[in-house]
């Protein structure tokens, strides 16, 4: 049947149709919709069909480990995250390449080149190479759908996890996808044949690692024979183009048959060495690499072709060094003139995103900014979420924002260095994702910090997913050792401004670790809840 699906939804539907037993994920743009789609489908699951586990995980590491557990039991598991989530789960991901998989294990990394909604544009294909496992990179939504099934089958055949790498334009672009009409059949529980494979004592791990190293040639063979990697010799084979994943679309958008270049499409890694050798044999003198993200293939290819073959791409300036590709930059790289068009309009000004009107983070920042005027050189360390927008006008309240959880620990480090006031601002979901352990460090060293947990009862920035600690933040904080008298709760509303300011003042003046929870529901989820209640 034909459906109009986002790339993320195609992956999700592909996993469901492949007999998925569990999806493990923490929300993160552009990966969120994979899990949301499975949750939506699970809510409408026909009777008699086996359930799919699909509750959000606290972070990407817990997600990866739980998926490894499901795979250990012989069932098919999917792990989804944005690219920087890969950093969070890396310990488990790398271990998973040494243990290998039992039930099919597919890890989806959704990269965000151009940083539409991210702090960097790291390329997850490096991670597949780092872990020495195969990587799939679909070029369109149909291929994404088909690849998930293949990835599960391959994972079970070779007993390793598979990384499926997509980028923003694949994740968030909709296209017609033809799905299989089957009733998904999940694996039954089946323990690993060799349990030692999952015990990474050095003595066992060495053997496992040797197996992984020995398997590398077979992974290259799989790539050489993959239907997703395709080499076509051109009529003018002196020039060749390697296009990977979605970059292939930008190439084909602009390609004219009269160009006659040889084309190698790559959607499965490690690189298909035999196809590259064939391309060289066909007389290639210059090869252009078009890839979304960092110049991964462009660097690798230099070791695979003779030094007489010129390699061009992002590293040589043939294509932009950073940012996502566009049909325009690929067009220019192919030597085609730009289409006739108008100049950009000079009246148009930027319209940066902002916190919603009525949002509790706003009132929290208003109070914080007012109070901090009373102190010399305060420092506020922010975190990742809607409240990061507090760095922009009108609040300009933040002095640093790095990654998930860094508000707590950077505030601690700054306090350790002698800074006062040293404030951390973190959301509830980010706190349970990566802030709790840092708070334990603060408590253990009685660091002179105020950690503001701006609790909107949801994971707001990604659209309002469940937050792992909702209703238990006070218990978590006191459980970590925060003194009850320095754990304060306020309701961020304009009418409470004086009270909030007084609480902040008192806790800044306390020489030790304080937590102020500013709690009010996200205005977006509140609207949704009110609408649902009306029905």
């Amino acid at each position, binding site marked *: 049947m*034909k459906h*109009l699906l*986002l790339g993320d939804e195609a992956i999700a539907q592909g996993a469901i149709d492949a007999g998925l037993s569990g999806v493990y994920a923490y929300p993160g*743009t*552009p990966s*969120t*919709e994979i899990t949301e789609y499975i949750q939506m489908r699970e809510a409408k699951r026909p009777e008699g069909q086996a359930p799919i586990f699909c509750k959000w995980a606290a972070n990407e590491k817990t997600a990866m480990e739980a998926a490894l557990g499901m795979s250990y039991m012989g069932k098919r598991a999917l792990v989804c995250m944005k690219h920087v989530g890969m950093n969070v789960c890396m310990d488990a991901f790398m271990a998973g390449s040494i243990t290998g998989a039992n039930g099919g294990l597919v890890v989806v990394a959704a990269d965000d080149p151009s940083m*539409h*909604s991210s702090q960097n544009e790291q390329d997850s294909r490096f991670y597949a190479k780092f872990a020495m496992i195969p990587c799939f990179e679909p070029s369109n939504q149909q291929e994404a759908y088909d690849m998930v099934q293949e990835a599960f089958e391959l994972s079970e055949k070779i007993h390793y996890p598979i990384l499926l790498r997509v980028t923003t*334009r*694949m994740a*968030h*672009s*909709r*296209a*017609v996808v033809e799905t299989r009409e089957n009733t998904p059949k999940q694996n039954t529980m089946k323990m690993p044949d060799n349990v030692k494979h999952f015990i990474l004592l050095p003595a066992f791990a060495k053997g496992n690692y040797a197996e992984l190293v020995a398997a590398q040639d077979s992974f290259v063979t799989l790539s050489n024979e993959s239907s997703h990697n395709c080499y076509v010799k051109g009529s003018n084979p002196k020039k060749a183009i390697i296009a990977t994943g*979605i970059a292939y*679309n*930008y190439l*084909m*958008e602009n390609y004219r048959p009269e160009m006659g270049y040889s084309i190698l499409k790559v959607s499965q890694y490690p690189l298909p060495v035999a196809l590259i050798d064939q391309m060289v044999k066909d007389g290639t003198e210059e090869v252009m690499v078009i890839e979304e993200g960092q110049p991964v293939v462009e660097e690798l290819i230099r070791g695979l072709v003779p030094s007489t073959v010129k390699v061009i791409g992002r590293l040589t300036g043939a294509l932009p060094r950073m940012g996502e590709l*566009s*049909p*325009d930059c690929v*067009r220019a790289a192919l030597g085609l003139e*730009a*289409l*006739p*068009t*108008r*100049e*950009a*309009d000079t*009246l*148009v*000004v*930027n*319209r*940066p*995103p*902002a*916190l*919603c009107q009525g949002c509790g983070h706003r009132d929290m920042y208003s109070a914080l900014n007012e109070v901090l005027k009373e102190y010399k050189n305060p420092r506020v360390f922010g975190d990742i979420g*809607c409240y990061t*927008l507090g760095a922009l006008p009108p609040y300009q309240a933040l002095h640093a924002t790095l990654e998930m959880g860094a508000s707590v620990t950077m505030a601690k480090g700054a306090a350790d260095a002698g800074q006062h006031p040293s404030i951390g601002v973190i959301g509830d979901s980010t706190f349970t994702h990566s802030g709790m352990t840092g708070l334990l460090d603060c408590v253990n060293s009685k660091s002179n910090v105020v950690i503001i947990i701006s609790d909107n009862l949801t994971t707001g*920035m*990604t*659209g309002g997913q469940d937050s792992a600690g909702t209703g238990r933040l006070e218990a978590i904080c006191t459980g970590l050792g925060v003194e009850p008298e320095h754990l304060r709760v306020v309701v961020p509303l304009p009418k409470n401004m004086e009270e909030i300011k007084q609480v902040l003042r008192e806790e800044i003046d306390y020489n030790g670790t304080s937590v102020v929870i500013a709690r009010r529901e996200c205005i977006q989820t509140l609207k949704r809840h009110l609408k649902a209640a009306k029905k």
Partner: protein
Amino acid sequence: MKKDIILAGVGGQGILSIATVVGEAALTEGLYLKQAEVHGISQRGGDVQSNLRISSEPICSDLIPKGGADLIISLEPMEALRYVSYLKPDGWIVTSNAPFVNIPNYPDMEELNKHLAAVKNHVALDVETLAKEAGAPSQAANMVLLGAAIPMLGIDHDKMIAGVRRVFARKGEAIVESNVAAVEAGYKNGIKL
């Protein structure tokens, strides 16, 4: 047939509901379609756009090249102008004329209208009033824009109306009819080729 359309607006205005209807109609017609959306941080009141491509032949790129768009549909006049470099020289702009001012340096309206008027093929409508006159709620304003754009969408009027009916069917007869009325109001006041 091939139409490249840029949908524009401010996060939260609901540009994607236009894409949903066009997508439904295109799928029913057996056409190819690609639609790149913006999710994440910019949805919080920032500028948002969606690239919608419809074709009777397979579509390669998810993004529209500069100078390649046949049509810009915008829920906000400045946002329409943000993408003029993507418009074909003879391309059309269909926009709401109501500014959404959530920034301190929003340009002068008179100047903005002059720039809009400099685009030969443009339709600027008071979509909320047109929706209200058609007996539809102001949320149906985007359906007025959709109606106004129909002659440039590559899917004919009746098929588009059928698409609207299917998309809104689960919301009940009254909502279906008010959205159809909004589309018709836009169609009457929209692009004349």
